[in-house]
């Protein structure tokens, strides 16, 4: 964020050597903990050359892991997006009893360990679970199958969109929507033409973060997946299997796809933040001009 406050040097500033020292320590910390691990993923993946790297990526099990990861994210993210918009509409635009409890409950999946998140679905749908016998009799598989992976992924990415949108829509209030309704717009028109343009950056931000988590989730998915190669392995699970088989090039090659995804996520996130800031700035200038 731009720091446009006027500062008189000397009075509220540290000595140059203190600045250099603190900046240096911060950079070493970031470098050691973030940069080196990130670089090492690509280095290890390419250690034996491009040919082996590419071979590890086009191997059938790797491809089916990529496919399953994409399918999972394609189901989980839109569902949580719909939920996030509905929850934010109810919470931000209306005053009702029990609102703060509802917000806390929506945040709940963030504080539950991913392993526990996986476990609760095993307890419900596993062979010895509540619905296990019924599911078995009807030959429906949820645990150790794709539906379980999707469910666990929905759980861990549950709050992302809602928690971006709730504070944003609360801050915006509902004056504009009320004006639109008074002028004769229908409820849906008001949502599409007034609310959605106002929340688009927050929405996109939530979707980007939810997608990154959905594609990268390990703990919850690992509990429900059963690790069947080529069938119920997502990319992170495939990375684990290869790593435990000492196939380091293969493991890091698949990991490098996820690392690239993380870099794209960070870039998109910064871009959205920048766009949102610029829109805010423009709105402020327009408001001042009136």
């Amino acid at each position, binding site marked *: 964020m731009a720091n446009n406050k006027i500062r*008189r040097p000397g009075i509220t500033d540290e000595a140059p050597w203190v600045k250099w020292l603190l900046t240096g320590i911060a950079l070493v910390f970031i470098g050691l903990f973030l940069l080196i691990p990130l670089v090492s993923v690509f280095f290890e993946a390419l250690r034996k050359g491009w040919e082996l790297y590419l071979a590890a990526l086009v191997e059938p099990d790797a491809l089916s892991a990529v496919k399953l990861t994409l399918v999972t994210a394609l189901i989980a993210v839109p569902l949580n997006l719909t939920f996030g918009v509905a*929850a934010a509409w109810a919470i931000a635009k209306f*005053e*009702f009893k029990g609102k703060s409890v509802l917000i806390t409950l929506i945040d709940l999946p963030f504080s539950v360990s991913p392993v526990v998140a996986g476990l609760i679905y095993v307890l*419900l749908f596993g062979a010895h679970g509540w619905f296990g016998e019924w599911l078995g009799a009807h030959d429906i598989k949820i645990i150790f199958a794709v539906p379980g992976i999707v469910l666990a992924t929905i759980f861990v990415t549950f709050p992302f969109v809602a928690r971006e949108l709730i504070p944003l829509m609360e801050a915006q209030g509902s004056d504009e929507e009320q004006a639109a309704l008074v002028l004769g717009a229908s409820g849906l028109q008001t949502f599409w033409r007034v609310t959605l343009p106002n929340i688009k950056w927050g929405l996109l931000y939530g979707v980007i973060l939810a997608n990154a988590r959905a594609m990268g989730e390990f703990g919850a998915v690992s509990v429900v997946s059963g690790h069947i190669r080529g069938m119920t392995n997502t990319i992170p699970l495939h990375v684990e299997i290869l790593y435990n088989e000492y196939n380091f090039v293969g493991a890091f090659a698949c990991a490098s796809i996820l690392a690239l995804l993380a870099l794209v996520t*960070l870039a998109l996130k910064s871009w959205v933040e920048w766009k949102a800031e610029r829109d805010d700035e423009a709105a402020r200038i327009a408001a001042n001009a009136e």
Partner: protein
Amino acid sequence: MAFKKPSVLPGFNLSLGYTIFYLGLIVLVPLSALIFKTAGLSWADFWQTVSNPRVVASYRLTFGASLIAAGINMLFGLLVAWVLVRYSFPGKRLIDAMVDLPFALPTAVAGIALATLYAPNGWIGQWLEPLGLKVAFTPLGVVLALTFISLPFVVRTVQPVLEDMEIELEEAASSLGATRWQIFAKVIFPTVWPALLTGFTLAFARAIGEFGSVVFIAGNMPMVSEITPLLIIAKLEQFDYLGATAIALVMLVASFVLLLVINLLQWWTAKRLGRR
């Protein structure tokens, strides 16, 4: 007071109804399954499971390592936030974006990267080995992985508070004769303290549940470097559903308590900063 204040906006029943239905379906019903399942255990059995020495050793490691990791991040997170807000240097925007890497990088990737780096023949491990410092496959490795995944929390809670701080306060303190260190200790630090504590608790809460990044570097030796989430998985793999559930309930209660503490801290932060 009625349940809801009147409003001209449409869609309240639909949006709230859907919110509660979806929340129940995905979160509340499955979580209650955990509680009902534990109710199938007698108190003595439950207690025996959750107070077994191997389980207690895993709590000690999980909570201890998380506490150390959150502490490291409290110190360095404040420093990084300070440097990012107050100083300018080339590549600052890039570093700022990098801070969120642990949120974006899948934990399994972080896990294998750290395990390889800190292995005795790894890039960093080979320099630590002669010093007698073993990181991979020891509790130190657990601390390292947890520090990585909880790194952004303190930076991201402290950063906005530092950005909003009024420079006039520091100028006033300075004109009244305070040294730079006194200003930091008596003006700046008290302002960021609630946010710092919130960030610490968020980092701690994230760390105790973490699984993916830890399993690769920890070595997972019972009583030494086995974290509680791994123990839940181990019990599940032996089809000991009741045992897994009992330990999971302990973790869940810990998460609930932390969630409560975080809410209180955020309320306190907002009050201290004079926001609504």
